[in-house]
């Protein structure tokens, strides 16, 4: 069982594209957040794959991965908190309605 590096990278790119689509196209703020999370994880997958195939001796990439995961967790916590705060204000989570920061 020997999956080449390219497959993983394809998978990662695919995941990223899915996430990007979600983040760009959906109106619901929570779905957008989920899209961002998927993009994050695509990036993390890249880190791990490159580590495994190129820099197996080092632990730096693993450190980075764990670091990125924890940042992603913090980010999603903040994002959800923002969504809830926004919901309390507008009684809605539709992003198109939130335009009060326009110039």
């Amino acid at each position, binding site marked *: 069982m020997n999956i080449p590096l390219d497959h993983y990278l394809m998978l990662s790119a695919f995941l990223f594209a899915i996430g990007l689509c979600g983040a*760009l196209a959906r109106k619901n703020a929570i779905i957008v957040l989920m899209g961002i999370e998927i993009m994050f994880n695509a990036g993390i997958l890249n880190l791990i794959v490159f580590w495994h195939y190129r820099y197996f001796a080092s632990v730096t990439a693993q450190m980075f991965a764990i670091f990125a995961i924890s940042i992603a967790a913090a980010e999603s916590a903040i994002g959800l908190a923002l969504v809830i705060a926004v919901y309390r204000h507008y009684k809605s989570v539709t992003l198109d309605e939130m335009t009060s920061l326009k110039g």
Partner: protein
Amino acid sequence: MDHAALQHLAQQQWWIPLFPLVAAAIQSLLPRGQRKLSAGLCIVAMGVSCVLALRALLATLGTGHHEVERVFFNFTWFHFGTTQLDMGLILDPLTAAMAAMVSFVGFWIFVNATGYMADDDNFTRFFCFLSLFAASMLGLVISNNLLLLFMCWELVGLCSYLLIGFWYFKPAAAAAMKKAFITTRIGDVGFFLGILMLYYKTGTLNMYTADGNGALQQAGALAHVAGWWGLSAASTIAFLLFIGAMGKSAQFPLHVWLPDAMEGPTPVSALIHAATMVAAGVFMVGRMYPLFTAEPGSWVMDFVMWIGCFTAVFSATIAVAQFDIKRVLAYSTCSQLGFMVMGLGAGSLVAGQFHLLTHAFFKALLFLGSGCVIIGTHHEQDMRKMGGLKKYMPITFWCYLIGMLALSGVPPFAGFFSKDEILLETFRRSKAAWGLATFAAFLTAFYMTRQMFMVFAGKWRGGDQDHGDGHDKHDDHGHGHHGGEPHEVPWNMWLPIAVLSVFAIGLGFFSHNYGLYLGVEGGEAAEGKAIVMGASLTVVALGLLFGWLIYGRKTMEHATDEDPLAAMGALFTFLNRKWYIDEFYEATVFRFTAVCAVFFRLFDKLVVDGILHAIAWVAWAISQMFRWLGDEFFINGGFDSGCETVRLGGKTLATLQSGRVQNYFRVLSLGAAILLLIYFFT
């Protein structure tokens, strides 16, 4: 002991002040509740210092030479530029005797203080200051360097400031602490000038150096260098230094702080008046004595003698008419310091220094005794409200009696020998000064007898006024006794005065040995000896007799009774109000300062401010001109049009910011995609 061993000992002198200093440092960190630890630490540190000082004293005693054995240890403190600052320690008879006296008397004062301050909330703070005080004084005594001496000198001043104002919540104490600090500071200006001049003339602040170029070793050479006021440099410096000593040792006209220093706790009074603060001035004069004697026949020595003489008489007259038990002792201290200074001025180092030593013992004894009386009578200081204490406080009475006899100069006691020596020296120098000083000795015997009778004889008058409310008030003190009756003090208060009274009896017999010890031969000349001794014995007897006639034959019945001397009328009031010196200063120095202040304020407002305003107006006018010509027209005009452009641009671009977060994201993604494409296809 040979020279090398002594040399080693001189090098170790710094241990003596170190122990109290460390004790003070530790205590400053102790919590307030640690009373026993604090007092114990302090007393042990002082005891160790005392042992070290006694060891140094014994070492200098045992040299067996006739000439003075003086060893010192100098070292460099730091360099700046090409100049270096030295520090030095010294061990010679003068220092050794002083250090032993300070640490020994200090030790017993500390023991007594544990009793006197037993009820105070700030016990640890008190002992911290007390320790620092002792450390600074010991540092002053052992220094072979004027800079070190000056630093310790100022530390002593600081500690006295802190301790006099220990009960700073009392307005009188707060005023007294400031008074003490500022008055001694006036003297310190002179002292500092003297130090500067000495440094300028000799290029060193070390008093003795191994190569013979120390400041004091050059005193002889300085006598041939011109100074100020037609004096030689040596005498000028001596005069300036003496001004410092006048402030510290409370000589007229800078004596005013010392009686007010009574506002501090009594052990502090004992420490200030016996072992440390006031001793510093006399000791410094003794230490710098070569400068004073360098130029024979200069008026500086006469000045010193007459200042001392006048202070001795002047303070003794005031002491006669005081009612506060501690105030009598305070003026007596002033008077005795006058004696010491007079002795020094009359040309005898030995007489002045020896009286300093003996006086330290019996004055500490008297002050601690008065502290015992104050505690025993529940914080009463007015002698009119005491009386009959002999019955209630026998131990205190006997010790106090010994101290009183020593101070009065009754033969077998210490004060007789040392005072007699001073009188003898003065007699040789000036008959007039001797006559005045003998009168002061008469007054000394008289006011001490007066005090004894008022405090210890007759019947207890304390209950006279505050019989009704006295009960409640006294119970608040929490001494663990009841009612207003006086009582004997606990052992930790009477033991110190008992020990000190032994010295008050015995120390006088060493006067001749002390002279030899300081390396001064002579004093054997019989000229005038019989007259002086006869005169002083007579006046002491007369003083005691008059005291008994006026106060002893018929003791006061009630606290409200008039003092028998009040029959003198205006003179008594004059003495009671201390010659109106404070009022005089109030009317002259203070008023003058106030007038100056008003004048300078007007000067500031009219002249200085006027000039400033004129300058400001010119600047303002010029700026107005530039404003109209340049600023408004060119700069503002250009700036305005620039701003308008930027504003329009901003308005156009602002439409891009739609507020829709996904729009931004889309643009971002599009940008990334374009970048990727460029990356792939180029």
